[in-house]
Every structure is written in C-alpha cells, then in structure tokens.
C-alpha cells in the first residue's frame, strides 16, 4: 500500500519548490511558432483583463511594430518610459530594469524574452532581466518564439536554414508558472505576412522571407505544439506525484553524454537534453581528458568548457574524467552512476584514421554490456560556429631550424664514422638525432625523420651525392627508417604532452591546495582574507580585493588594494548586484561586461557573504572559461573559510551569552534575596520608629535605630561587592602597583572591619624584616577585608582570627586563618566561584562574591589564592603577591 502514498521527502521537496515559487514572481510565457502569430496581442489582452480585475499592471516593454490593432490595447495601461542607450552614435531604446524594480508593480509586461540587450546594460540578455524581476517577486508576462528556445535552436536552424543567435535557456520556460500557446495556422500567417501585418526588419528582408516558407511554418508550429504538449505532460506527472495517482511509472533512466572538443558537441548536448526531457531522466555530461587534450589549441579547450557550461544551463550535471582509455573511463563512470543510456556524437573522422587509431564509438559499443549506446549525427553545426575558426598556431621556425641542424650534426658524425662502420650503423645515429628532435614538437620531429632519410640516402648510399639508389634493398631500409623515426617522435611528443598536461593539472591543484592549507591555518578573519587575496593575485596575475557585507548589508573592502578601481559608485553597483544575486558579473562575463573588475560572489552554505573583485593586468581579461572556473573554485574555498571563521565566532558568542545568562540569573537570585533581607529590616524598623514613636521607650528606639544602621552597613557592603565584581569582570579594574609595607595594608583593612570584629581576637604575625611589596593598596586591602569578612561570617563570635605573612620563593605569602568549621570536602575550589555560598551559610546574607573578588584581585596581581583546611581545625586562606623586582632602597636617617 505504501506505493499509494507520496514519498514524504519528495513531497517536502515539492513544498519547498512551491514556496520558492510563491516567493518569486510568476512568469507567464506567450509562446508561439513564429513572429506574427499574435503573441503580443494576446499578452496585452490578458494584461487588460488583469488590469480590469484591479491588478497593478505596468507595461515594461512592448513592441507593437506599429500595428494598429495591437496599439489599440495600450491606452489605459501604465507604460514605463524606455531607457535610452547611446551606442556608436545611435540611440537605442531598451527596457529599463531599474525603473521597473523601483516601480515594483504586481505584474509587468516584458515583450520579446529572447532579446539581446544593448552593450552597457546590466545583463547581456533580456531573459536575465526577467529573472531578476521574478526574484524581486514581480509577476511577468512575456513572449517567446519556439526558435529561440536553447534546446531547439539547432533543430530550427536545420529546418529553416536560418540561424538564430538569440536563445533563451529551457529552464526559463520550464520554471514558468504558465505557458500559453498562441497558435495560428500557417496559411493565415502567410496571409498576414502578405498583408504587411507581420513585422519584418528591413535589413534582413530576404532571410526572413525565406524563414516564412510554408514548410518551415508547419515544422515550427509542430515544434511549438510539441513543446507545449511536453510541458502539459510534465505537469500531469507532477500532479500525479502530488496526489499519488497510481499510474505507469517510467523506469528511472539516467543518461550519460560524452562530449569532445568537436564543434558538434553542443549539438550532441542539445539532442541529449531532448532525450532526457522526453524520458524525464537525469543526465550527466562528461568530458574525458586524455593526455592529448592538453595538446589541443586553447580554442578547443574553451569549447569543451563552453559545452559543459551549456549542459549545465540546460540542467545537466557535468563531470570531467581523466585517463588514457576514453571508452574505459566512460563505462566505469556510467556503471558507478547506474547510467542506462550513453549518448555520443558520430565521429566525423575519415575511415582510415578509425582503422588506424580505433574509434571510441566502436570501443564503447563493444564493451558497453547492458548499457544502450546512442550515436547522434555529427553534422556540422550552424554558421556561427564556423565563424569561430581555430586560429592557426604560430609556426615554430626555430624548431624546424633546430631539427634541420640536428640532422646536419648526425650527418657530420656519420661522415666521421663511415670509414670504420657499416652504413647500417649510421642509421642508428640518425635515429638518435630524430629522438633528440622529438623534443622540439611534432612538426620539427617529422621534418627530422624525413630529412634523416634524405641525408642518409644522399651522403651515404651509393651512388653518393645523388638521391638515386643503386641497390633496391635500400628502399626497405628507408621505409623502415622513416616509420621508426616517426613512431619514435610521435611517442616522445605524446609523452611530453602528457607530462605537460599533468604538470598543468598539478599546478592548478597545487595552487588550490596551497591556498586551502593557508586558509585553514588562519585564525582571524583579516589574516584569512589577506591570505586569500594573496593567493588569488599570485595564481591569476591580477590585482585582487575582497569585500564583505557588514551587518547593514553594505559592502566594505576588507583586503586587497583595488581602492582606485572600486571606489567608483558604478563599480560598487556591480559588486552590490553580485552580492544580491550570488552570480558572477563584471569584466569578461555575460553580466555587466563593461565593469573594470570581474566580481565573483563568495557564496557558502549560508548565502553570499562577500565579493572577490579581480582586475586582470590592463588590456587582458580572464578570458577562458577554464580560468573563470578556477577562479570560482578559489572563491568557493575562500567563502568556506570565511564561513568557518564566522561559525567559530558565533560559537564563542553563544558560549559567552549562555555564561552571561547564567550569571544574570545567579545575580538576580542573589539580589532578590540578599538585598531584600536588609531592606526589610530597615523598612520595618524605620516604620516602627515613625508610627510607634510615643509608645516606644528610649532603649527600644535605640535598638531599632541600631538595626537600621547595621542592615544599611550590610547593604552597603553588598552593593560594593557587586560593583567591584562588575568592574573586575568588565576589566574596569586597573592595578596601580606601588611599593607598600604589608603592615599598613593589614592595618587599614582591620580598621575597616573593626565594627564587625567586635570583641573578636585578631592575632597578627608579620615579621619585622618583611620587604616592601609591589601591590595596589586599595585592592589588596579589599582582599583582606573579604577574607576577614568571610571568617567573621562563618565562625563563632569568639573564635580568633590569625593573619600572618612570610617571604616564599620570590613572593610574599599572606595567610588568613580561622578556627571555624572549615570546608566541606571538595569545597576548597568551589568557594572561589561567583555566587557560591558555603554549605554552612544557611541564612547568612552575602551574594557569594567576596572570595571571587579576592581571587580576581590576587590574580590581577599575578598571584594565586588557595583555601585549605587548617591543621588543627578551621579554614586557612593563603594568597601570594609576587616580588617582581628588587624593592627600592630607602635610606633612613637612623644613622
């Protein structure tokens, strides 16, 4: 029966998704097969009815292309003025995102989702503007044609033979709350086109007319209908999942897509995405880095990263595997991830190469076992990719010259050897030269191979000094020699390339590792940021700064030296945007590329904590996606480290808070009991005096007045202790040490407790040769008072107290001893705790602060205080005051 109930985890995830969607604005897409089907019209009509229903509707951007029937819908709706952008002498009108965010309507209309913004706008694409509006909880209506959908882009281009450059990620359509298909039969559309009701830009007239052929329109209509249907299908499934409608559940499929640096890779990814969407399967896109990858030109390597980026945008998980055997790596990964289908592009290589070097496809098919392998046609991608022709690497003339030189040297050596060795041995010399030349790269090494054969023939094979060969046996020698030379050089270059690739990877890993290790060892936030800035600056050869958000949400530069670049308000604006959106922006990126620095968010588990600003050396940009990826990794490490520091801080704060809390409650109980008791006596006695004045005899009046005075004294001591403790705790006590005779301090302490002592005997034993002691007289007097007070409180009235002192081990040790009940076992250390009161305390008042204060003061003097049972009964308190230096000499005039 459990299958009838929705999985709670999945349901929870759905609820979260739902909540996130509710907090975000809702997107409604008016989706059509082509321009002219009436999307804008439909959108405006829907907006009007919303407006009439009382919704706050604003037109952010609408292009009516001057069509009267569309324009007729505009009046009555608020319209945001366009933003004017100067670009190369012309003024472009653009949607004003900031105005829209400031206006904050409930619903905004933004036409043409696939539009590319004018340079200098915040985002490169309008769909990014829309995403920001949605994030700001504004509902958006927009329009979109099927050809602009990322995953269908290539299909449309193939069907219509007209490339579309402006694309929108599929995720936008998938996350849309509603998609309304605006449909018009092709014949009607063609009629509207003829009637001039469809807007056709003048400059692209011919291409667009080619686009609007009936065959194309039918195909586009089908694509649009299918896309919408697939969405409905998906919604149906979500509904089923939510409501636990039993039905046919597709077997969980997982698709693995292999991509190569080939230009077809993007096509393969798009095709795989359609398959994954159709199957509602998870999909993973992998690239296998083989040693040869490192040999590839930068453009090819970029293409791999771009393809992986595209895959991520289309919703795939991506991974990069490393190894020699592509098929083996892919299959191992596929098995590990329980992949059911592998998709890869059809190789476009000539047959002979396949025969010679083998084919990954064949290899995979042979070894795949129970995994299905799908091969997608490797047709050449649209013209936009042809445009990015690989630039020819610069020819290494020096390498070729060195190769030729190597062969010449071999020839020289061979000439010297000729009288003593058979010609066959000379071949070995040439092979040696070829191996040496292999270090110069592929081209030079092949040149060296060919030249070696030629030189050997020319100089040493009879007839000498001609290329003619008298003995046909030498032809075999030449052939073998050439093959051996080429194989050797190929193998050598490959090994070198491999080494180079691993060296590069090693360097990246090492850089990252070095930073991570450095970050872990940093304790303070500032040191950590300094370290991060230093590492990023070193690895990327750039100038770097770190900004952190303060509690008010302002960005504050905490490390690095980009004051000049980043003080600009517009730069700060970019940084702020990055902080708010947690996305990379600035120089060289898709968002706000006009900025002077590249801003990378420092995002960790609890959101974006700050910004890493990077300014590459002037003129350059951190162009390759590989570099940007690496930079993002560095930023992630930094963010994690910052978060770690913040967590440590918080833990400390929390500990401190709980400690404070505990103290506060002890204090409250102490105050409520210990302050109230004397107050009660004072109030009672005073009221007795006031009210019963006539009836009281003189003796009673005195007694009452005495009670008031005694209790007031007690209250005073208590308040003094509380204040003293507070000052000690808050570090407000300064120890003003000076040289004092201990005797004087003991004397003033005794004078202060004179009244409490009453008739009690105090024995004082201070040796006459006791040196001057460096101490703060007021504080040490307080220690003595508190110890005496304690003895008075806990011992019978007639019990004597003894004060003695002696010099021990560079310190003066002072003892206060009584003959009272002593301590309960284990109490010796507890009694110095704040608010601790002895078990014998009973109803005695006192907040339990006296001994804690004494300890605080003694420790502030660099001494120690301990309590121990006194031999023969009673308590013994002993504290030390260090004799740091020689006491000052005092010459007396005793003679």
């Amino acid at each position, binding site marked *: 029966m459990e299958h009838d109930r929705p999985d709670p985890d999945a349901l929870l995830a759905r609820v979260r998704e739902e909540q996130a969607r509710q907090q975000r604005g809702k997107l409604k897409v008016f989706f059509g097969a082509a321009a002219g089907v009436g999307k804008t019209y439909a959108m405006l009509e829907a907006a009007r009815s919303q407006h009439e229903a009382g919704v706050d509707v604003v037109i952010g951007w609408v292009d009516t292309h001057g069509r009267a029937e569309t324009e007729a819908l505009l009046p009555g709706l608020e319209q945001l003025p366009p933003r004017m952008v100067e670009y190369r002498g012309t003024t472009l009108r653009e949607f004003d995102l900031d105005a829209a965010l400031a206006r904050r309507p409930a619903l905004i209309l933004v036409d043409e989702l696939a539009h590319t913004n004018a340079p200098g706008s915040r985002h490169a694409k309008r769909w990014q503007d829309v995403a920001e509006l949605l994030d700001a909880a504004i509902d958006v209506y927009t329009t979109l044609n099927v050809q602009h959908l990322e995953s269908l882009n290539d299909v449309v281009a193939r069907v219509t033979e007209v490339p579309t450059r402006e694309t929108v990620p599929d995720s936008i359509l998938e996350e849309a709350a509603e998609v309304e298909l605006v449909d018009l039969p092709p014949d009607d559309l063609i009629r509207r086109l003829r009637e001039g009701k469809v807007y056709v830009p003048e400059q692209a007239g011919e291409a667009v007319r080619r686009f609007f052929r009936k065959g194309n329109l039918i195909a586009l209509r089908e694509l649009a209908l299918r896309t919408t249907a697939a969405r409905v299908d998906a919604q149906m499934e979500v509904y089923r999942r939510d409501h636990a409608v039993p039905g046919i559940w597709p077997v969980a499929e997982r698709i693995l897509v292999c991509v190569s640096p080939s230009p077809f890779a993007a096509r393969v990814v798009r095709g795989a995405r359609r398959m994954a969407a159709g199957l509602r399967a998870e999909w993973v896109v992998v690239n296998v880095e083989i040693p040869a990858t490192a040999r590839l030109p930068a453009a090819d390597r970029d293409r791999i990263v771009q393809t992986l980026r595209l895959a991520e945008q289309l919703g795939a998980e991506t991974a990069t595997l490393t190894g020699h055997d592509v098929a083996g790596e892919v299959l191992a990964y596929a098995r590990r991830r329980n992949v059911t289908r592998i998709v890869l592009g059809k190789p476009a290589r000539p047959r002979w190469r396949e025969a010679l070097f083998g084919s990954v496809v064949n290899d995979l098919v042979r070894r795949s076992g129970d995994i299905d392998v799908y091969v997608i046609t490797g047709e050449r991608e649209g013209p936009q990719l042809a445009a990015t022709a690989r630039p020819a690497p610069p020819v290494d003339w020096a390498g070729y010259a060195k190769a030729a030189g190597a062969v010449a040297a071999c020839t020289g050596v061979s000439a010297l050897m000729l009288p003593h060795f058979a010609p066959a041995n000379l071949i070995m010399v040439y092979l040696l030269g070829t191996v040496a030349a292999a270090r110069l790269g592929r081209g030079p090494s092949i040149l060296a191979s060919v030249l070696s054969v030629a030189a050997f023939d020319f100089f040493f094979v009879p007839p000498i000094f001609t290329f003619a060969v008298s003995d046909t046996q030498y032809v075999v020698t030449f052939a073998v020699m050439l093959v051996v030379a080429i194989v050797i050089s190929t193998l050598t270059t490959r090994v070198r390339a491999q080494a180079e690739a691993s060296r590069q990877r090693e360097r990246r890993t090492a850089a990252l590792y070095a930073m991570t290790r450095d970050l872990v060892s940093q304790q303070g936030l500032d040191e950590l940021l300094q370290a991060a800035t230093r590492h990023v600056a070193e690895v990327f050869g750039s100038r770097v700064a770190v900004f952190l958000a303060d509690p008010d949400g302002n960005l504050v530069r905490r490390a690095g030296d980009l004051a000049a670049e980043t003080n600009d308000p517009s730069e700060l604006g970019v940084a702020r945007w990055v902080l708010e959106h947690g996305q990379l922006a600035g120089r060289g990126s898709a968002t706000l590329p006009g900025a002077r620095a590249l801003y990378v968010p420092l995002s960790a588990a609890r959101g974006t904590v700050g910004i890493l600003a990077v300014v590459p050396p002037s003129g350059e940009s951190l162009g390759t996606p590989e570099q940007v990826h690496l930079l993002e990794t560095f930023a992630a490490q930094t963010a994690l480290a910052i978060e770690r520091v913040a967590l440590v801080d918080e833990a400390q704060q929390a500990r401190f808070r709980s400690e404070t809390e505990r103290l506060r409650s002890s204090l409250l109980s102490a105050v409520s009991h210990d302050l109230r008791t004397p107050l009660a006596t004072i109030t009672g006695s005073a009221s007795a005096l006031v009210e019963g004045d006539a009836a009281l005899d003189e003796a009673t009046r005195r007694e009452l007045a005495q009670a008031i*005075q005694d209790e*007031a004294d007690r209250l*005073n001591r208590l308040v*003094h202790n509380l*204040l003293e403790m507070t000052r000690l705790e808050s570090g407000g006590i300064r120890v003003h040490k*000076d*040289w*004092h*005779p201990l*005797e*004087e301090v*003991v*004397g*003033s302490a*005794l*004078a*202060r407790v004179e009244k409490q002592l009453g008739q009690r005997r*105090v024995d*004082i034993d*201070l040796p*006459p040769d006791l040196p*001057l002691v460096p101490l703060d*007289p*007021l504080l040490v*007097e307080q220690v003595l008072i508190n110890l005496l007070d304690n003895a008075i409180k806990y011992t019978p009235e007639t019990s004597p107290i003894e*004060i003695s002192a002696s010099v021990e081990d560079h310190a003066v040790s002072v003892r206060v001893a009584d003959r009272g009940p002593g301590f309960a076992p284990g109490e010796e250390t507890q009694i110095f705790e704040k608010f601790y009161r002895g078990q014998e305390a009973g109803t005695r008042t006192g907040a339990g602060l006296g001994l804690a204060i004494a300890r605080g003061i003694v420790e502030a003097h660099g001494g120690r205080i301990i309590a121990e049972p006194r031999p023969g009964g009673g308590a013994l308190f002993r504290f030390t005051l260090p004799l740091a230096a020689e006491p*000052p000499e*005092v010459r*007396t*005039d*005793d*003679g």
Partner: protein
Amino acid sequence: MAETRTGGEGEPTRLPANGPVVLVIEDEAPIRRFLRPSLTSQGYRVVESETGEDGLLQATSRQPELVILDLGLPDLDGLEVIRRLREWTRIPIIVLSARGAESDKVAALDAGADDYVAKPFAVGELLARARVALRHATLGREPGESTFAVAELRVDLARRRVWLGESEVRLTPIEYRLLATLVRHAGKVLTHRQLLQEVWGPAQVEQSHYLRVYMANLRRKLETDPARPRLLRTEPGVGYRLLTD
C-alpha cells in the same frame, strides 16, 4: 532654591542660636534632609544649596564658617567649586564623595579641601571632621599652641621633643618632621603629596614609598600594635591622619 532656616522644626532650642553658619552644597534632597537636623542639633546654623553656582553665591552672601560640599553636583564639578572658593577665602571645606573614588578625594584635598567624608557615612564622623576643621581655622588666626597631647603621646613642638607616657621617644629628624606635620594638622587628613612636600620638599613628591617606610618606623616607635594603629591612621589611597580622640 536656597532655603535658610535656623533651628529645625520641633527641635529643642537649648542650643545657642548664634552657632557657626554651615553651607551645605548638596543636590540630593534625602542627604540634606538628615544633614539639616543633625547639624542644627549641634548648634550649627544651616544654609543649603542645590547647585554649585548657587553655593558659590551663598558663600559670598552668607559668609559661612564651614562648607560641606558634595563632589557630584549637577552643574559644576566639585573641584571647580573648591578652586573658585579658594580664590578668595580660606574657610574650611569638607568634601562628600563616593567610596572607591579615591583619586577624586586626593584631587579635592590637593585643590584645597580640608577633609573628606566618604558616602555612606555616619553623622558622627561628619561632625567630628567639622569640629576639627573649625578648630584648625581658628588656630590659623591665633598663635598655635606649642604642645600637643593625645592618649599617651605628648609632643613639645617648641623644644622638638616627644614622649610616650613617661618615657621620651627618640626620633630621627625626618621622623620628627613627619610627626610634627601631622601634629600641626591633627585630626585632619593629609595626602601623600602634602606630607612629602612638607617633610621632604617639593622635589620628592613622587617618592611615596619613602613616606610609607617612615610612617611604618614612626608607628613602631609610637604605637603599641603597629598593625592596628590607634593614632597614626592610614586613609587608604588618600594619605594619613593623626587621630585626636
């Protein structure tokens, strides 16, 4: 603001109505409330001020013989009041200050105040200080007595000799100068600085450990239990006082 009465309500008028005028400058009404009857009952005529400015005004118009001044006034710093009084008069000033604010007391005494009482205080203590202050004020105008005696101690200032009971005590010159200074100000507190300046001279005012060592020596010679002195009392953090009763 300044309420002036001579004699409290219901207070027996057995005391002379022309006793010394005491100016109490204190902003706390509860303190004034118990000071007035306590002082009046001892024959003082009380003039009250709630602020420093008014106190200074009353001091000129009423010509009091003693000022009791709270250091924590709302308008003026107590030290400022002392300085402005000292510009034109030598009338004794007794300062009321909070316990723990020893440096304030020292500053007030060094600025010219005659004595201090730390809050909270017993009335008896204040009255004793007032008596001492008034006596010294009178002494200042008359030729001083040449002998001084308290308990067992007897000092002949003219002949520079000291007795404890029947036996004469031998003091070193500095010890004697220290004792003599205390005797001249008997009953009054003297700050470390004041004592150092009088006994050792202006160059030595920072050498307070000298003072402590000599004070300890003096106590050994004059006190029965130097750790519990009866005569030469320490005022912690402030200075010393030779008790007179």
